[in-house]
């Protein structure tokens, strides 16, 4: 058996902000299918049908943290935020949750003799993919151009999907921007671009893109510091890929 515990959660990125270290204590993610009773005249047992609509919700509990780009900043943001969360670990191929979320509830809860607590609930305004979402590039710091190790999905898919990028820290140095792309391949030898994210010049920053059609069996992430590295160039980012 391969159980996972709280120690395996490797990142939670909200709008590119890395907030796991803010003192997150509980997460609840919930996917629900809308069902309706379709028992008809003549039936002797109740019957149910799936309407075809799904709802998604994610709730979090933790300690209140008003440091720059931490928990409070992330939860106060009014616009939909890209939320990326890794419950299994930080390796390529580990399951991830990634979607564009609208924060609905944000409770700041002071109490005598205790640290303030902060709870929040998100609903999705886009995503998550209801197939498998995997870490394509682990959250890590890069100082050179490069590409990740390829991930083998075992087979290709034809239903498209979505990709998410979160950049939690960026020092450009000599570079003018950071450009991250996802590539796919049928043989792990010849690679073609699946999606390119908007060039990043500041952090925190995050982006969600949809992809259509075939996603080939092998995928990897490549990144380029435009203009070359030097003068302290460094970027910390993660990428996920979800297949519908």
């Amino acid at each position, binding site marked *: 058996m391969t159980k996972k515990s709280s120690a395996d959660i490797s990142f939670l990125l909200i709008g590119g902000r890395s907030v796991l270290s803010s003192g997150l204590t509980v997460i609840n993610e919930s996917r629900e299918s809308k069902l309706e009773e379709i028992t008809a005249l003549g039936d002797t*047992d109740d019957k149910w049908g799936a309407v075809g609509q799904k709802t998604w919700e994610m709730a979090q509990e933790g300690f209140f943290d008003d440091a720059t780009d931490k928990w409070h900043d992330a939860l106060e943001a009014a616009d939909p935020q890209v939320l990326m969360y890794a419950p299994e670990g930080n390796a390529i191929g580990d399951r991830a949750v990634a979607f564009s979320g609208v924060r609905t509830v944000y409770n700041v809860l002071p109490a005598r003799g205790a640290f303030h607590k902060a709870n929040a609930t998100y609903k999705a305004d886009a995503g998550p993919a209801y197939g*498998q979402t995997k870490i394509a590039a682990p959250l890590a710091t890069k100082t050179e151009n490069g590409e990740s190790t390829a991930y083998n999905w075992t087979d290709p898919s034809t239903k498209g999907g979505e990709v998410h990028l979160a950049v939690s820290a960026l020092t450009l140095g000599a570079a003018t921007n950071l450009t991250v792309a996802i590539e796919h391949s049928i043989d792990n030898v010849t690679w073609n671009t699946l999606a390119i994210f908007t060039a990043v010049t500041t952090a925190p920053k995050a982006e969600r893109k949809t992809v259509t059609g075939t996603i080939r069996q092998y995928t990897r992430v490549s990144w380029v510091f435009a203009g070359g590295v030097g003068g302290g160039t460094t970027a910390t980012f993660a990428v996920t890929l979800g297949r519908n």
Partner: protein
Amino acid sequence: MAKASYTDLTISLDKAAVAKDISQYVTSINGWSKERILEEITAAGDANDRWGAVGILQKSEVVLTGPYDTTANGLFDIASTWTDDSEQTLTLLFSAAGYSQSVECLLSKLEINPSKGAFHTVVVTLRPTGAIS
């Protein structure tokens, strides 16, 4: 009496229409709840209330809880890859003597609950549709 306990229970759930034994991944299950729908038919002149069976048997949702375990064909693996609206068969073998019942189910809800200092837990809610047989 021929009692049976949790140690006798075998839980099987289809993955893409192929039965998989998920017993070792389930730490709690609420089992079947079958309610015969009744309607009161107490009439004028009756000194006691009277009820009639409408003829429909209503089932409650089946809720299975277990650890977040990524092993293939476990509870989490089956629920997380059950992404269409297909019906899959849930079978409970209650005792070694072989008392077994099955029902077709829709996946109603999948919850994943990480919490500090604990294994992640998975809660899978199934909606039986049709007869338990």
